[in-house]
């Protein structure tokens, strides 16, 4: 008895219209904000959010409260499902509309699933190298290796001021600082340097400092942490663990940035950056590094050839292409595959896309080994947009044809 007003509310067209109107405003504001907050920042602030408070538009802060993407999506979903349940009629007249709306439900649910389940990673290798893992795009881990055993701690757990006790490690990790994004600079001798962060390891040769979150779509944050390791016997010193040293592609970019000082010097700087940092506790040596979190596969890919072609006489890229050897000892598969723009490899629940490349003439002239970066995506719900789009398209066409034939025959009889 009391349920009727609730049902009426959730099945009303007015609710649909209001939600659509809010969605338009949200998408518009969220798009404008990208100029100030960056693509990922805007996504988190407006779309992957329940309630949006305050907005950035054209460099100004605007006080406003909007329902976020999650809230609107959920309400639209409830609205759609409720309407379907309570207003369902069978018949040609409504068939198209109902199919279209069912398709929208599939799309919304699919996007929700993608949001929760999809993982994006990258695989970075040079010609001749083999990888059986890929690096996370957004997650990092602090990794300790002692002999054959390794311990990985998610970077998310490192909070400035905390002290972490891990069972497999004979020391406490005191987090002095954990920066989401950071810059690195070589401490050139004979220069006016401020004192180093600590006097251990790579901090002797490099300055690290916190930086603002990146905004551009093709960049990512590079975290750095300042850590002190303590045992009952006392401190093992303060050290810097940085993704700048843990990620091969970043080390390469640091090396390239110092190339104007001469290749030998640049190489020396890069070698110092990746110099292993080791501490000793309980009679065991631990080498540690901060690096992108890894996902391992039971198979491996070897980059055979990376090729980048341009249109003649221009810098306009024509084609990026990686030829890889897929090796799966479990199934005995060993075959060559070509991955290029718009032609990914789908294998073992993962999809490998051609993403970035350093090959072709520019790499050749600089004497670099061609490298390729593959975007690796695991998305169990990747098929839902295809199904949803098909349903909505078909539904709208049916409805449209139904009206059109009615309209045309009506005009003819006039």
């Amino acid at each position, binding site marked *: 008895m009391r349920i009727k007003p609730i049902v009426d509310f959730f099945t*009303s*067209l*007015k609710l*649909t*219209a209001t939600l*659509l*109107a809010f*969605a*338009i405003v949200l*998408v*518009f504001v*969220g*798009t*404008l904000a*990208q*100029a100030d907050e960056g*693509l990922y920042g*805007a*996504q988190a602030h407006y*779309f992957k959010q329940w309630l949006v408070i305050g907005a950035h538009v054209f460099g100004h802060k605007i006080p406003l409260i909007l329902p976020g993407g999650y809230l609107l999506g959920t309400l639209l979903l409830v609205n759609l499902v409720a309407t379907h349940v309570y207003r369902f009629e069978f018949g040609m007249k409504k068939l198209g509309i109902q199919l279209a709306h069912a398709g929208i439900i599939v*799309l919304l649910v699919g*996007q929700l699933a*993608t949001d929760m389940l999809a993982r*994006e990673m990258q695989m970075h290798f040079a010609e001749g190298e083999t990888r059986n893992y890929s690096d996370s795009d957004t997650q990092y881990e602090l990794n300790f290796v002692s002999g054959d055993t390794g311990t990985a701690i998610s970077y998310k757990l490192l909070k400035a001021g905390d002290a972490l006790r891990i069972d497999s490690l004979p020391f406490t990790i005191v987090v002095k600082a954990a920066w989401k994004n950071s810059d690195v600079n070589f401490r050139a001798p004979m220069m006016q340097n401020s004192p180093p962060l600590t006097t251990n390891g790579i901090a002797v040769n490099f300055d690290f400092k916190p930086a603002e979150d990146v905004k551009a*779509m093709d960049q990512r944050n590079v975290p750095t942490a300042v850590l002190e390791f303590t045992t009952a016997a006392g401190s093992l010193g303060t050290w810097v663990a940085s993704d700048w040293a843990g990620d091969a592609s970043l080390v390469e970019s640091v090396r390239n940035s110092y190339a104007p000082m001469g290749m030998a010097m640049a190489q020396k700087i890069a070698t110092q950056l990746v110099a292993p940092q080791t501490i000793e506790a309980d009679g065991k040596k631990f080498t540690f590094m901060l690096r992108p979190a890894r996902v391992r596969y039971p198979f491996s890919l070897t980059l055979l050839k990376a090729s980048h072609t*341009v*249109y*003649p*006489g*221009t810098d*306009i*890229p*024509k*084609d*990026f292409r990686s030829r890889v050897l897929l090796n799966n000892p479990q199934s005995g598969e060993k075959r060559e595959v070509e991955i290029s*723009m*718009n032609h*990914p490899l789908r294998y073992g629940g993962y*999809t490998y*896309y051609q*993403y970035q490349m350093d090959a072709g003439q520019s790499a050749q002239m600089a004497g670099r080994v061609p490298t390729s970066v593959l*975007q*690796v*995506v695991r*998305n169990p719900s*990747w098929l839902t*947009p*295809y199904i*949803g*789009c098909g349903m*909505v*398209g078909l539904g*709208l*066409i049916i*409805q*449209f044809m139904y*009206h059109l034939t009615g*309209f045309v025959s009506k*005009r003819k009889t006039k």
Partner: protein
Amino acid sequence: MLVMALWFFGNLQTPKDKDFAYAEFGRLPLTANGRIVPLDSLARNSLLEIREKQTLNTEPWKAWNEHPKIIPAAEWLANVMMNPAVADEWPVFRIDNPDLISLLKLPDKDAAKHADGKHFSWNQIQPALETFDKENKRIQGVEAANRTAYENAIAKMEQRLTRYAQLKNAVQPADAQDWPAELAAYEKLIPDGVAAVKAQQAGQKYDQNNFNIFVAYIERFQFMANLQPPLILPPNGPREWRRMGDALLEVPRGTPVDDAIRDYARMAGAIAANQPDEFNAALKDYRATLVPSQAKALAKAQAEVFFNQMEPFYNAMVIYVLAGLLAVFSWFNLSETLRRCSFWLIGLAFVIHTTGLVYRMVLEGRPPVTNLYSSAIFIGWGAVLLGLILEKFYRNGIGAVVASGIGFITLIIAHHLALEGDTMEMMRAVLDTNFWLATHVVAVTVGYASTYVAGFLGLIYILRGVFTKTLDAATGKALARMIYGIVCFATLFSFVGTVLGGIWADQSWGRFWGWDPKENGALIIVLWNALILHLRWGGIIRERGLVNCAIFGNIVTAWSWFGVNMLGIGLHSYGFTEAAFKWLMLFVVSQLAFIAFGLLPPRLWKSFNRSATRA
């Protein structure tokens, strides 16, 4: 109708070469912007970039009725490349910014002194180049988004000067006095010159004179090559399309001098010496060498020249204007003849428009929409088609006005977008897929076109309703029905197009939806159309509300089409021009004004008034 058809086909006639065979010269193929083009296209695109027109007026200070001398693009290009002594005197650089004009100390408008105050020659600009370079160096440090109008003018001028320098160094060094003779002397010098350089490097005695002359040649050719002009020399055996400068630098390393190098030198010598017969003979010989190995390139160049001369979009635009006027007149005197006349004229323009569209697709080997320019052409095409269909059914002149109005506006937009340069540029690797260009891009563009048709119908409703007495209840109802039908159509196409875009993204980099500005723009169109439909179904809006919502759809579509590109972020941003931003703002304001009129209470409308009071 017949007159217009005759006019169009009359324009198709190829101009005959009287003296120098410049039109024939324009049909030679070369490689520019990564594709094979005729010299004619290079000439037109370069002139568009430098002068914002496809032809050169060598006497711009004369009024049109004084018959200033207009020369075709190919003739201009031939002289820039091979006869700079003449070309450098032609007022080809268009400059509008007064600060830049005074920086370069250029003359004011004065017909007696042969100055129009807007177009200047290389020789007029050249003395101030040092000043210009200093300013240019400064503004290169200013981020494009923060530049003033003056600084933008400098940046644009820099591009124009570079383009001009590239063309001047495409065939011969720009400073060559007698190129055929210099080329022969260079060839003769090579053995001694190479010996001198080798000896010098080995620290032995060498011929100072030979060394100096040879090194001077190499430096000039190096300069030519470094400017990266178009690749003018055709493939020869293992050698692909090459730049003249690169080819000349290869000669001392043992690569023989191609026939093409000699043929171009012969043409250059003939132009400089004003010998048309010799030029035409050299041109003919060069063409003959291309026939066996470059038949495909020749045919493609020829086809593109024909397309350039046809100017289908420009001609269609002119006819749309005429047809639109006829259709509007038909509302007032309700003349069926005028309406029919308009309908058939639009049909003619549509055929020309379609021919151009298909011709372009064949030339490029691509679906209709590959860039912003072609999207304007295609949106116009789709809107005209919808308008014609509406006219066929309703026979009330409304469809005709929509078709000709949107056809005209979109082609004007395309005309201005073409100023950016080559409109058939090559597709970057990620876009290099005909399947998705044909499905996603076409569907989204049809969505744009239909949203504009609905919006334009809304404008007609308001214009006729508020300002004239021609909108009776039946016409109003018919208009609302048209808008409703078109909005349904728009919803279908914009939705399918947008989702297909997501699927393309999923295929390319594994992310169905990335909240990229262009994606969001398309999503807003879908949401807006869906909102209109739901408001209508719920009875929240009626006839007038529908009309106003449809007009707002114009703003939403303009935002998605151009606005998001101006944010300068994301995958789809193509860079932003200040002029485009101004026009977009103007458009938005005008549409809002129409909506404001639409919101006026009915008693202020000229139409309906009587029927309203009666009811």
